[in-house]
Structure formats: C-alpha cells, structure tokens
C-alpha cells in the first residue's frame, strides 16, 4: 500500500478534485433526485478510493469498511423510513 500511495502523482488528486467540483455543480444545477443520488455515490466513491486510498488497501479491509457502513446504513434506513411513510399516510 505505501509504495502504491507514494507513487500517486499530485495531478491525480487535482484531477479528482476537478471531477468532484463538476459533479457538485451538476447536482446543484439539476437538483433531480436520480442525479443527486448518483452524484452523492460517485463523490463518496472518488473520495474513498482516491483521497483515502482505499483502492490500494487489502480487499478484506475494504469489505469491512464499505460493508460495515453500507449494511448498517441500509438497515437503519430500511427500518426507520417505512415508519415515516406509515405516519404520513
């Protein structure tokens, strides 16, 4: 991991920065839910993989981090959101 990270050129980070800004701008200008969801996921992926260097970590660590966050978040939303619909109807 360390060697791969040290070899990451600075321009990679600044290219990622430009992409993040472009996605943010697209999200603000369109405001449509599908674009917002796709934009949030794309931005989170870019930050995690390139800025946090998750792409160069071992697969078991990646699975623990992403699996832990996504599985629990999905469970949280899945258990809580339906109650909101029930209350609103």
């Amino acid at each position, binding site marked *: *991991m*360390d060697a791969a*990270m*040290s070899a*990451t050129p*600075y321009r990679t*980070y*600044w290219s*990622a*920065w430009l992409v*993040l*800004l472009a996605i*943010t*701008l697209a*999200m*603000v200008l369109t*405001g449509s*839910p599908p674009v*917002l*969801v796709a*934009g*949030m996921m794309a*931005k*989170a992926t870019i*930050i*995690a993989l*390139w*800025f*946090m260097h998750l792409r160069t*970590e*071992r697969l*078991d*660590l990646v699975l*623990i*981090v992403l699996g*832990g*966050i996504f599985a*629990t*978040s999905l469970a*949280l*939303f899945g258990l*809580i*959101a339906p*109650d*909101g*619909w029930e*209350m*609103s109807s």
Partner: protein
Amino acid sequence: MTVAAAVPMAMEARGGGGTSPFGISWQKAMMWFFIVTDALLFAGFLAAYGFHRIAAPSWPDRRVVFHMEFITAMTFILISSSATMATAVGAARAADTRTAVRFLGLTILGGLVFLGMQAYEWSSLIGAGARLDGNPWGVPGFSALFFTITGFHGTHVAIGVLILAIAALRALRGRYSGEGVELVGLYWHFVDLVWVFVFGCFYLV
C-alpha cells in the same frame, strides 16, 4: 502446538494480525474502525432526517431558507481542502516537509473558512427565528435536525482543524512521520465525505 502459539498464527493467516492487521499499522486500522463507527453516527442522523422528511406533511423550501450559492461555495471549499490534504499526505510520504507543511496550512485555511461560513449561515438562520424547538417555516423538526446534523459535522471540522494544526506544528519541528499525516488525512477526508451526504440530503433534496 500450544494455544499461545496457535493464536498469533491464526491471526497472521486471516487478517494479517500481529503487528500489521490487514497489512497496515494498528494506528491506521484503528483509524479505519473509528471512521466506520463515526459514519454510523451520521447514518443514524440522516436516517432520522429521512424519517422526519417522509413523515412531515410539508417541508420548508430550501431555496427560501438557504442561500444556495453560499452553501455551494462552502462545499467547494471543503472539497478543495480535501485535495490540499491529499497533496500534503503525498508530500509527507515523500519526506518533502516544505510542501507538506504548505499544503497542511492550506487545508487548515480551508477548514477555518468553512467554519466561518457555517457560523455566518447559522447566525442568519437564528436571526430569522430558527431555534432547536421551532422556526418560522412551521416544521419544528426542520431546524432541530438542521442544527444537530450541521452542528455535529461542524464540530468534526473544528476538531480536524485542531489536529491539522498539531500535525503542521510537528512537521515544522521535523517531528512527524508520513503515516502520522496520513492518519490526519483519513479523518479529514472522512469529514468531507460526510458533507457529501449532508449537502445532498439537507440542502439539495
């Protein structure tokens, strides 16, 4: 084989264990675990926000409540500070102290500007009558969730600025390691990552 001897071997065979779990240092592994648990805190907040949003018969119009250009500028600044942080980590890894300190300084500046803008936004909303228990837009949960979620995030940014300042001072004195700066970087990028969802869910939906 004794149990004492078998346990380290089993750890090595699975997660790497020993002094290098998952092929990284213990410090870095613990930072990742902290990030996972902290992410779940914000997931809980955003799930609560989702519940309120779905359950509420109406919700304040974001274009009326927020200055979207201002919030977008805040977002740009935080994203830019992540890029400067990544550059600082790369420089620290390459033992380029001067570049590392310069970009740590720029990251601190970005964090301070973000905090200043958030303070301005908060004072604008408070000035308009928004409180934890009510607001002029008729949905009490709106301002309670807003102040709680952005307040927790802002606290994370403030702590990040403090840790960055300590890292920069240590680097100036030559008492730093590439991995130390990298750990600070992981935290800072996480703060940026959380804002992606706060910004998307609270300001754009």
